[in-house]
């Protein structure tokens, strides 16, 4: 089996390498991907059209908003699927196998505990900064959401799952994840209700005190917050379910 797969891998690799010749050179400004008018349009027209200096954010949340919405739905679905697969009540473990019950109780270490008490608020504020400042610097809903989720994972790691669940109980996780997707879709449907295409934010200037350009700018922040809600909730949910074997009682 191993030799067979090695042969298959080598053949695939050689086929791919034989195609390398046709690719453009490294960092070639004339390469088709960079020379094509789509890329040029994004670079030159993003700021005049949306008022966002960070092109990545503008392309993510505005031009390719439909794609990003369903990426958020994928994250949401994966999180729900993990809960569906693993979640079980803690009582079922005892009849499953009694030997697995751990007896040790984790003592919170003074240095670790104090350091995390100091660090976690800073991590969370930084996460909010990354979300809110995604228009002007590298950042956005996905990145900020992951950082925010990581702060809860840090609480779980250094103390225990109960401590983290005080802030994000399971019910709140599901609510947050759903609210995030709905917030994103809500911006899309608001555009439709006002008579434009789905996620075509410019029309929202009718209900916002803003010009069409500013409406796109601010709507992008709105959908980024939606993405951040979902990603935060699902990141913590994935970790807590995997680490506690679906029981949400105690982690590794």
């Amino acid at each position, binding site marked *: *089996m*191993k030799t067979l*797969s*090695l042969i298959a*891998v080598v053949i*695939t*690799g050689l086929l*791919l*390498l034989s195609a*390398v*010749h046709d*690719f453009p*050179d*490294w*960092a*070639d*400004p004339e*390469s088709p*991907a*960079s020379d094509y008018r789509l*890329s*040029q349009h*994004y*670079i030159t027209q*993003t*700021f*005049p059209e949306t*008022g966002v*200096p960070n*092109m*990545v954010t503008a*392309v*993510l949340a505005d031009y390719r908003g439909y794609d990003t919405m369903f*990426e958020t739905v*994928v*994250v949401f679905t*994966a*999180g729900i*699927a*993990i809960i569906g*697969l*693993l979640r079980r009540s803690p009582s079922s473990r005892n009849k*499953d196998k009694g030997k697995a019950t751990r007896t040790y109780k984790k003592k919170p270490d003074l240095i670790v505990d104090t350091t995390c008490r100091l660090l976690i608020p800073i991590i969370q504020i930084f996460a909010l900064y990354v979300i809110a400042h995604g228009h*002007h610097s*590298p950042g*956005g809903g*996905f*990145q900020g*959401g*992951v950082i925010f989720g990581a702060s809860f994972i840090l609480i779980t790691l250094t103390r225990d799952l109960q401590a983290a669940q005080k802030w994000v109980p399971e019910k709140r996780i599901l609510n947050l994840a759903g609210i995030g997707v709905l917030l994103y879709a809500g911006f899309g449907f608001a555009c439709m209700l006002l008579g434009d295409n789905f996620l075509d934010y410019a029309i929202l200037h009718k209900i916002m005190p803003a010009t069409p*350009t*500013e409406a796109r700018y601010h709507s992008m922040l709105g959908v980024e917050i939606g993405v951040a809600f979902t*990603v935060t909730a*699902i*990141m913590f949910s*994935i970790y807590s*379910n*995997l680490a506690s*074997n*679906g029981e949400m009682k105690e982690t590794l």
Partner: protein
Amino acid sequence: MEVFDAISAKFNYWIYIIIMMIGLYAMMSKNNLVKKLIGMSIFQTAIILFYVSIGVKEGATIPILYHEQVHPAHDSGHHGSDTEHAADEHVTAHATDLHIEPDQFTNPLPHVLMLTAIVVGVATLGLGLALTQKLYREFGSIEESEILESIKSAK
């Protein structure tokens, strides 16, 4: 030397193919399901490297406009609703004659695609690990051959 030049001009593709094949080999040959998932992650990293390396341009910077391009004359009045409105109108008025050179910034599109791919990759990796954990609960093993064996013997 000619061969070396041919490779070094396109070294990003060589690296991505090598990493991708390591991942593919791990996915195909490893018996342990967690190792298969590690292989999947390596494979995914290769795709991300491939996309991001396509977006690179010689002498270009990250696709975020310079502060001077956004706030050309003066950087005042970005606080408070009235002054902000006036400032933004000023920016929009300036934007029409704003000259942005496409060669100055890297291609933003691959960055966007990979940004979402990374997060979705984490979510799918989590799903894969959850499935592995579920299999371990059912069969008491994460070795593919042992799982197949116990499915066969159960029939």
